[in-house]
């Protein structure tokens, strides 16, 4: 079914790339001020002042941040699912995104973010790392679905409460909504810079396809076949934590992307990670940009709301199949 790239897989990849290209253009057109494709082009070329401002100041950073966030969350989901050998593992459900949010919010509250652009992502990475360690402690590797999800529920509740408390105590109430239900409106080139390491981490995952396959079928089996499982697992944890944290630092908690995208991709192109990892980066970006456009068309629904509206029912459907 999935040894050689078959026509179906090639078609799925071509479709994802075509969809991405289309959405890239649409994403620059749609918004409070609608632009025609011709205006988008003249805006991109800085030929027309108004279109140029809209494209370069508002929509392009938003588009790029959305793409990076989607790529990061989908790839983090793929990695976590292989690590825990469970297709329900993902940054949102396991509380890693909530950890990143809590870290970011604490940094904002104590005013640390004013000094440097990089404090916010670093704080987010610290929070996400703590959450990752907690999940591993609570659920162990290859844990049952119940155990894994319960650990995630506990962490999400704890970290969510922490985030809400910090934000309300420090009188930044307006930001609570942003951090608990993520979004990518009003993103600037600064946010693009903050999220840019996602490209590097994604590229580092690329060569790990084969070992990921082996790990996904059992850590002891993988080790007996020659994989240095301890080293591989460490790399995977660092990568998935970094990806989740960087995405959270610029967009808040955007749920379900790491669950939906890998699952649909496995159905479309099979479970082999040497394809799943790169395609998940493209498809994740496509999915989030698409959700963002849908949100804008539906009267400025936040990205986090759109992904949750799609992801909630999807998750329940998956759960019904799994348990």
């Amino acid at each position, binding site marked *: 079914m999935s040894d050689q790239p078959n026509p179906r897989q090639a078609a799925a990849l071509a479709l994802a790339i075509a969809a991405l290209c289309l959405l890239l253009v649409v994403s620059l057109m749609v918004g409070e001020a609608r632009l025609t494709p011709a205006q988008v082009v003249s805006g991109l070329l800085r030929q027309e002042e108004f279109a140029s401002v809209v494209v370069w100041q508002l929509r392009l950073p938003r588009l790029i941040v959305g793409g990076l966030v989607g790529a990061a969350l989908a790839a983090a989901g793929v990695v976590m699912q292989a690590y825990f050998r469970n297709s329900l593992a993902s940054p949102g459900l396991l509380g890693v995104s909530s950890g990143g949010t809590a870290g970011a919010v604490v940094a904002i509250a104590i005013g640390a973010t004013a000094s440097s652009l990089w404090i916010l992502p670093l704080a987010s990475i610290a929070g996400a790392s703590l959450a990752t360690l907690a999940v591993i402690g609570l659920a162990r590797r290859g844990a049952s679905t119940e155990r894994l999800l319960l650990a995630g529920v506990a962490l999400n509740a704890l970290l969510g409460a922490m985030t809400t408390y910090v934000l309300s105590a420090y009188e930044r109430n307006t930001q609570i909504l942003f951090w608990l239900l993520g979004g990518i409106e009003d993103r600037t080139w600064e946010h693009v810079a903050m999220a840019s390491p996602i490209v590097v981490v994604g590229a580092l995952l690329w060569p790990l396809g084969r070992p990921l396959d082996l790990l996904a079928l*059992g850590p002891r089996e993988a080790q007996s076949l*020659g994989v240095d499982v301890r080293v591989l697992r460490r790399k995977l944890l660092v990568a998935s934590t970094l990806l989740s944290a960087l995405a959270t630092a610029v967009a808040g908690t955007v749920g379900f992307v790491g669950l939906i995208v890998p699952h649909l991709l496995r159905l479309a192109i099979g479970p082999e990670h040497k394809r799943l990892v790169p395609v998940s980066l493209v498809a994740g970006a496509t999915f989030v940009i698409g959700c963002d456009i849908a949100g804008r068309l539906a009267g400025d629904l936040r990205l986090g709301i759109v992904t949750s509206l799609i992801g909630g029912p999807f998750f329940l459907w998956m759960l019904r199949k799994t348990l």
Partner: protein
Amino acid sequence: MDASQDALSLGAIEVPGRLQLDRLALPRGALIGLVGPNGSGKSTLLQVAAGLLPPGPGGAVQWDGEPLASVPMLDRGRRAAWVPQEALFEFGFSVRSVVAQGRFAHGDDGAGVDEAVAQFDLVALSHRPVNELSGGERHRVLLARALATGAPLQLWDEPLAALDPRHGLEVLMLARKLSQAGGTVVFSLHDLRVAHCLDFVAVLHERKLRAAGAPETVLTPELLREVFGVKSRSGETLILELP
């Protein structure tokens, strides 16, 4: 390789609560059975032998006389293959791609994979997702993967338990062929009648090694009574063979 003819030797193994073993040496080119009641430490022994569980402080595992600790991780994948007792798959990799994983340490995708698929009667299943197979079929996939590694030391944890009589016999014949070609096959089993036909048997009892050697000298009525609590006698019995 040193002068030792042992494919595998274990010394001073101590896995708390699971296995304590002073010394066990297994000859190269032999078909070797590991028997013992449930919980006697067979799986633990195989995992220690495969380098998947630490042998404990002062414990040592040697492959062909070479300490396992000095064998690089990737080399291990070429020199020994381990098959777990339970074959569980979360993701729907195809049968062939799982068998091809046996080539990971060799860095090639193909060599010996189709042969291994055919050996274990998996040709008709080769494109099916492994998570939709029956327990016995999944086990054959793992055995085929172990075979595809081409490793001279094969460590199989109860390979016969999940298989139907015919596939069980085929696996035994294959193991026999591997050992005749100079490989060493060590596997745990519960069928003492099968154990009787092997080259070498190690008996575990209460997480310790009770006896090891040729089956006719080891599997005495006294030992069977003491270790397994069964009375034994030779006599006419149903004999199964491949046609």
